[in-house]
């Protein structure tokens, strides 16, 4: 019995997968706090889809998928900020315009290609079991970069998320802060692609933070709780997917969704008790 329970931890590729899940779950859900508070839920979906153009270009030219995805996602992220400011449209609209454009470019290029079609499945739904030692090093490296940026900017990020105009008047460089958040989001999404894939990455950004928001009215507790939910969903979901022989990305997202509804239930119970 115990052997069955511990089996996943004995395989090399599963150990790497668990480590990657830990990092990705923690990163996404920590940044997700800002994503939810800034009402940018759409952005995870947007940047993830934008990465597809880079992946296809990398595939056609024989380059690294990581680098292709990174370039496409960061260019789209900064483009979103630029279009939002220049065209004077809402951030949501800018995201909608740019990510569909980038995704369409990926499909367009692939449809014209005569080479064998890319293994789309693994990009759309993730392939955590295929994490190589190099991939893992990249995930951890990017994870450290994201953690350092958030550690440096958490206060201006919080201030501009809450009260942009006054923060700006007080001398906080709100554009720099916005762009830094977008770039860090882009990096996080890229490292998450292998875990949950393009289609489901947005859930890892949004769902744990939304669950945490049900349980606390303070920022730091919300961030910590969100990180806890994110890590639990990613690691627990990966474990469950192994035992259930189901898709890892889908199992992870389902677990996060379950946590969200559980938090909603706890909140409802609490308010009933208080009343």
């Amino acid at each position, binding site marked *: 019995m115990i052997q069955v329970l511990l089996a996943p931890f004995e395989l090399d590729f599963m150990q790497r997968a668990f480590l990657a899940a830990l990092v990705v779950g923690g990163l996404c859900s920590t940044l997700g706090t800002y994503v939810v508070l800034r009402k940018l839920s759409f952005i995870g979906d947007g940047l993830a889809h934008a990465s597809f153009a880079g992946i296809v270009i990398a595939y056609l030219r024989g380059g690294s998928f990581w680098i292709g995805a990174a370039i496409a996602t960061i260019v789209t992220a900064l483009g979103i900020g630029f279009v939002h400011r220049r065209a004077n449209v809402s951030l949501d609209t800018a995201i909608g315009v740019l990510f569909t454009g980038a995704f369409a470019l990926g499909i367009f290029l692939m449809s014209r290609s005569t080479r064998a079609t890319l293994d789309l499945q693994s990009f759309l739904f993730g392939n955590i079991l295929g994490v190589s030692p190099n991939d893992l090093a990249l995930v951890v490296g990017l994870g450290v970069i994201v953690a350092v940026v958030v*550690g440096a900017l958490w206060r201006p990020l*919080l*201030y501009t998320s*809450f009260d942009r105009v*006054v923060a700006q008047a*007080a001398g906080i460089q709100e554009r720099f802060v916005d762009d830094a958040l977008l770039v860090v989001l882009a990096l996080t999404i890229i490292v998450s692609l292998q875990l949950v894939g393009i289609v489901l990455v947005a859930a890892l950004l949004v769902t744990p933070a939304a669950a945490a928001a049900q349980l606390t*009215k303070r*920022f730091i507790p919300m961030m910590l709780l969100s990180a806890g939910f994110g890590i639990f969903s990613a690691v627990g979901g990966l474990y469950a997917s192994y035992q259930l022989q189901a898709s890892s990305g889908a199992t992870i997202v389902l677990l996060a969704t379950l946590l969200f509804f559980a938090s909603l239930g706890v909140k409802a119970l609490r308010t009933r008790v208080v009343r």
Partner: protein
Amino acid sequence: MNENAVEVRNLHVRYDRVIALDGVDFDLPRGTAMGVVGPNGSGKSTLLKTVAGLIKPSDGTVRVQGVAPQKLPPGTIGYVPQIEDVDWTFPVSVRDVVNMGRYPRTGPFRRFSAHDRRAVARAIDALDLGTLADRHISELSGGQQQRVFVARAIAQEPLLLLLDEPTTGVDAATEDALLHLVRGLVADGLPVLMTTHDLDRAPEWFDRLLVVDRRVLADGRPENVLESGAYAGIREHTHTHGHKR
């Protein structure tokens, strides 16, 4: 060092085709409370936002401490807008919001210094928010909310304080507390620029009063400006042009 905290010269602000300010000139010396009055749509809020560096002049210049507002060191300008357009469900307490006043001066990876904590504690005391400090912001009355945002601006220890109609829609106790606070800050040398609709109490609040209707119609001691009838004049004149663009 220049004795004027703010110098505005020939300031024009246009939004697309609407002219909000059409050649405004004035100086705000240190240790002076200056009131800005004018009818709705006269450009009062635009004037404050331009001095805060939130709007770029279409023409003319704004200088704060001798430089353009955007080039000031972080934490120089404390601004309290007329309507705080914030998300009241945002997960912050009263103290969290007042803490934000220190953020522009807190470097990356730095913890709050003893000085930061003192500045926050003083601001919370000055606005009598001690018993509310751990409340969530959604649990406050309108007057209490206004006090929180003023406290945040004070905690910042700004070199210029901009208040956009801070007394509109607040209770009498809050208004008196704000008056007392502003006069104390001005006595300590802080320059304050504040818009208001309350002409009757202008002499209590301000050392100087600026009457603005897209340009400066009067500038002087509040008693003199009110006696001159400059404001009564524009009130009528507003009815005739107020709806025109």
